[in-house]
């Protein structure tokens, strides 16, 4: 059963269709990958789901409920959390405070101080940052800042997590760690929709992949199907990757 569905999702910036007539669905408990060249509209699609931008036409539904017209904080409280392509941590705060924000405000009910503190420290432990909870977040490496974003998103107790290029800029060892983290999150019962350029990661953990190009969906299927898809190879993967896989 799909937890998230989109029908004819379209977004215009002026005359340019950044996302045009995209149909998609993410099933409960899945890890779905979203790939495509730069400017394909991947992050725009995430921004439409999380309501950073209003949708131009079409419809997005979460657990059967229409998301059109809702504000970002409402979307978050419904159970959709996200991370950002360029990390957007609260750079003026400590690591723990960053995660506390998610714990306090992310759930639909009022959270007590004690519950929020517990939720935040659990989320930090889950991503492996317990030791740094009292560090100013701006002193952390990029990898750890991305982990803070994940912990902050998890603290909102989401059912669906949108990961926007979690692995960009990480070295191979860090990529493996991040892959492990994503699988661990899914094992907690959280559905994952992720944008990624690191093919090793996408192919390694996704159950299904969707490819965008010029705002349109050009392919969808299992990793194997996508890796062999003629259009995807032409516009994105290139011959070499195909030969290698």
């Amino acid at each position: 059963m799909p937890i998230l569905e989109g029908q004819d999702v379209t977004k215009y910036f002026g005359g340019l269709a950044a996302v045009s007539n995209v149909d998609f669905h993410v099933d409960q408990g899945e890890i779905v990958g979203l790939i495509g060249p730069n400017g394909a509209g991947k992050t725009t699609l995430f921004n439409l789901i999380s309501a950073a931008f209003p949708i131009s036409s079409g419809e997005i539904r979460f657990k059967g409920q229409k998301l059109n017209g809702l504000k970002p904080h409402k979307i978050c409280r419904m159970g959709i959390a996200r991370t950002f392509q360029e990390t957007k941590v609260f750079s003026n705060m400590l690591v723990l405070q960053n995660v506390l924000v998610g714990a306090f405000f992310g759930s639909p009910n009022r959270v007590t101080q004690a519950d929020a503190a517990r939720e935040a420290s659990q989320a930090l432990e889950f991503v492996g940052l317990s030791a740094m909870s009292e560090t100013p977040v701006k002193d952390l490496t990029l990898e750890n800042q991305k982990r803070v974003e994940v912990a902050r998103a998890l603290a909102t107790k989401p059912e669906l997590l949108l990961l926007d290029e979690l692995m960009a800029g990480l070295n191979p060892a860090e990529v493996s760690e991040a892959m492990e983290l994503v699988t661990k999150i899914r094992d907690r019962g959280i559905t994952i929709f992720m944008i990624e350029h690191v093919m090793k990661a996408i192919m390694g953990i996704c159950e299904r992949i969707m490819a965008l190009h010029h705002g349109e969906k050009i392919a969808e299927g299992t990793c194997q199907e996508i890796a062999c898809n003629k259009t995807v190879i032409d516009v994105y993967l290139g011959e070499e990757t195909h030969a290698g896989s």
Partner: protein
Amino acid sequence: MDITRFISTHRKLLLVGFLFLILIFVATFPLYTRASDVRVLTTVLIYVVLAVSWAMFSGTTGYMSLAPAAFFGLGIYTMALLQKELPFFLIIPIGGLVSFAFALLVGLVTLRLRGIYFAIFTFGLVVFMTEIIQFLETRLWGQHGQHITPIDNETLLYTMLGLVVVTVLATYFIRRSRYGLALLSIGGNEEAAEHMGINTTRTKVFIFAVSSMFMGAAGVIAAPGLIYVNANIAFSLFYSFMPILMAVFGGMGQLYGPVVGAVIFGYLEKTLRAQLYSYFMLGFGIILVAVILFLPNGIAGLVPTLQDKLGGLMARLRKGEQGEQHANT
């Protein structure tokens, strides 16, 4: 013997004791000083309220409001217009509420603006208020300016002291609450804050209105000390810039930063301005530039550095003692 350790373990107690001493000092101030000094202290307290309430919103969210004068002036005019109808102590909350309501309205319209645009709008708001009051006075009321019946210095001092206590306590509790966390996160990254479930517009507008409420109440209490006001006096941009300079000078990372800044600058302004006006403004500018360049976190930012230095010194001294003991045995 160990001063640093004593300070760190009994921090709360010391702080409360220190605050209590300040309260006693202000409360007994009129007993051993001249009336002019009492007026100086009242002015300093006005600046404390303005600086602390400005930092409550702008210091945390980073939205640079230049509107304190608009809300302060609104308080002054509320007093001027209601002084004959209502008792003084009733006008104070009314002045606060008028400013609160006005800020709510302004906030709903303008807090969608970001960065420099918000600053310019709030600047324009002060100019707008001046013009509109002038228009009302000349065209409708047929008089220029308002006379305000003086109230004795002690009453004004104690009322202002009460407002300082309320403002500081309110700021303290807001900073500690989830609202404080939300405000900080808006200052850190507003877009991310929105996506973490914070209703950023509502939070900003509400705290903007709360901070304006204290400015309005301060205006009511300040009014009798002015005796005569017109639009240019009540809505002087001086009241917008001073609190900002004081808060920046004192440091906005800590609650006491704006208080310290307001006390130092307020005192200097009141005592030096009369005698050497131009030199005062010159020195004022130099000090401010120096603070921004060398103390980006203000005076309050100096404290942790000094604590580190002091702690290091103590540790070295202790080591020295131990070294001597070793040498003796």
